[in-house]
């Protein structure tokens, strides 16, 4: 963790642990005083999995969210009120996330929540905030959150959703007549990605030659390889996430699949690519919400990267980190427009907001509160052509923001 973010978290931590230490009397008696001071400060709760397999992504999210907060505070806050970020560890567990969110709402009296890195955590937080009328900006990929069943008027979905990601990736990697084999993680995320890809295929005219569902969290994929090969596809489309993606691509490469077919994934993760190495990922194509290399032609990305480099010893922000930045920024911009933290006003402001803070113009769609935004299609570079340690991908395309990539409101179950 770098200095900027550590300060913010530490400041928070010390206050909380003091409360815990003093126990009942102290914390309870202190309440009236705290409550008065709290009117001044705008508090944003930020649950994220600081422990567990996505800790690196989570730390990056915290850094980026802290950067957004710092930028607003440096400019004098929101209507003169300072903004404070309250980071909590959700341990990548929905139950833990629900508990932390309850604490943030009930004890810390936050004005809004931003965060989550997995679909389950996101839906757990959504459940808690929906019942209590708290604004929540969610920053983890999911189609479910857009659908009417889980819709909350208080929730805004800043992350890409599987449908738009796959639509963009397919548009730039599938061609008419391609034969596509699917290896799909057997849970909601995988199913959503598969559905998106197949729909895009139907439009493009690429044929599905077979699909294999693999168990979520499997470590060995060798047993699927002979069958995938026997399907003789031109494209192997692997719809899974994180460790599953790393393992399955690594083993597909071991089986020599890359010589015969192109590997396409819905999402290429910066940190996962670092963890597995350039040779395995070489030539793999996938989508992303953000890649630092965008800066060459995009002034917002350049500004975001520079601000991040400034506080983080020249490091660059990653994809999931950028969600932390855009998510918090959009919320604060809306609060600024609403002139405070009044929930209804902020909701209206978010719905009307047009923002461009890191990657080009974005806007929340009114019916499902999905952020309409550009989708990057990336291809992993080979080791020899990397110019630096973080020069990981070539940008194949930057599919511009458009509702064409999304399912229509009526399709999601919203009244027209």
């Amino acid at each position, binding site marked *: 963790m770098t200095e900027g973010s550590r300060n913010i978290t530490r400041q928070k931590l010390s206050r909380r642990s003091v409360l815990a230490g003093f126990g009942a009397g102290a914390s309870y008696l202190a309440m009236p005083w705290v409550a008065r001071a709290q009117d001044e400060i705008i508090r944003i709760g930020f649950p994220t999995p600081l*422990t*567990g*397999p*996505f*800790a*690196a992504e989570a730390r990056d999210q915290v850094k980026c969210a802290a950067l957004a907060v710092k930028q607003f505070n440096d400019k004098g806050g929101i209507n003169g009120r300072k903004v404070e970020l309250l980071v909590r560890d959700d341990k990548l567990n929905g139950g833990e996330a629900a508990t932390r969110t309850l604490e943030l709402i009930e004890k810390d009296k936050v004005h809004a929540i931003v965060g989550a890195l997995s679909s389950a955590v996101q839906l757990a937080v959504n459940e808690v905030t929906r019942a209590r009328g708290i604004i929540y900006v969610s920053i983890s990929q999911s189609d479910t959150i857009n659908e009417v069943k889980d819709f909350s008027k208080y929730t805004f979905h800043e992350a890409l959703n599987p449908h738009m990601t796959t639509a963009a990736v397919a548009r730039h990697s599938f061609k008419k007549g391609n034969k596509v084999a699917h290896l799909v993680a*057997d849970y909601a995320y995988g199913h959503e990605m598969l559905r998106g890809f197949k729909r895009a295929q139907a439009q493009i005219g690429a044929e599905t030659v077979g699909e*294999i*569902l*693999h*168990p979520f*969290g*499997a*470590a*060995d994929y*060798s*047993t*699927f*390889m*002979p*069958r995938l*090969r*026997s399907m003789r596809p031109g494209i192997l489309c692997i719809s899974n996430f994180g*460790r599953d993606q*790393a*393992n399955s691509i*690594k*083993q597909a490469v*071991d*089986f*020599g699949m890359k010589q015969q077919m192109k590997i396409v994934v819905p999402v290429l993760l910066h*940190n*996962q690519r*670092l*963890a*597995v*190495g350039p*040779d*395995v990922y070489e030539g793999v194509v996938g989508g992303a919400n953000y890649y630092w290399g965008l800066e060459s032609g995009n002034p917002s990305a350049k500004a975001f990267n520079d601000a991040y480099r400034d506080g983080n010893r020249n490091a660059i922000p990653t994809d999931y980190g950028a969600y932390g930045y855009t998510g918090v920024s959009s919320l604060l911009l809306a609060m600024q427009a609403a002139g405070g933290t009044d929930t209804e006003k902020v909701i209206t402001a978010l719905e009307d907001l047009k923002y461009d803070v890191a990657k080009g113009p974005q806007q929340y769609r009114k019916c499902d509160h999905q952020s309409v935004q550009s989708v990057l299609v990336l291809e992993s570079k080979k080791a020899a052509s990397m110019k630096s340690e973080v020069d990981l991908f070539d940008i194949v395309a930057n599919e511009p923001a458009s509702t064409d990539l999304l399912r229509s409101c009526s399709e999601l179950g919203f009244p027209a």
Partner: protein
Amino acid sequence: MDTELILMQLFSGVALGAILVITALGLSIIFGMLGVVNFAHGALFMVGAYAGLWVASLTGSFWWGLLVAPIMIGAFGMIIEFVLVRPLYGRSIDDPLLLTFGLGYVLVEAVRIIFGSDGIPFPTPPQLIGVVDLGVGFFPIYRLFVIGLVILVLLLLWLGLEKTRFGLIVRAGARDPTIMRVLGVDIGKVWLVVFGLGVGLAALGGVLAGPMRSVNPEMGSLVLAEAFVVTVIGGLGSLLGSIVAGLLVGIAISMTALFAPEMATIVMFALMAVVLLIRPQGLFGKLA
């Protein structure tokens, strides 16, 4: 389904089974001799992979990592036995189980602190990159190498247990510890070596798995469950049982992958439930 595919699938199952065998064997040896269920086995598997990677990066050669890491982690296992597990003998059999459960947490977190939580690349040794045509399909050379190496290790283990004095002591001790005292064998030393051997096998499994999977702090979690299933099916403490059950589970998984792929993880637990209902002590186990 054509025959080629089924044969190929069978072969994948054997390769998968080879890794299962080597990790389950370590678990089984420790249990058979010491009566300790090592819940840190998965974590030690993971530590082995990291150690192999570390040694390989220092020496620039995978082969040094393969050789040194299991010995290094085996020695570490001896320290664990001596410092942590030994004080628990004579207490409830649950105590070492609980202790190693806590140790697993500590090891995983320690690796996260030292090497980061994301995982690091573990490249396949250049000599073993690529695939060969088996006649029924293409198979990675590295996986063939793993099968060969596991057979070699099993052979060495068998020779060690059958043909050496130490092996004799271990086999006798597993049957009846009191005999050892009568024979004047320092049982403490035997425990130490056996625990080290079991942990070393876990580490070897980790190094071997490194080039096939992503190396990360959580990689041992599933391995632990798999190793348990294999040892329980085979019969706790039975070395032959671990070998047969490892192959059985590997093949069951690969065959399920062919017909109902999304069930490939459940199948091993289901297999175990069935075996235990018919034979509660496992295929080769003795009744308690």
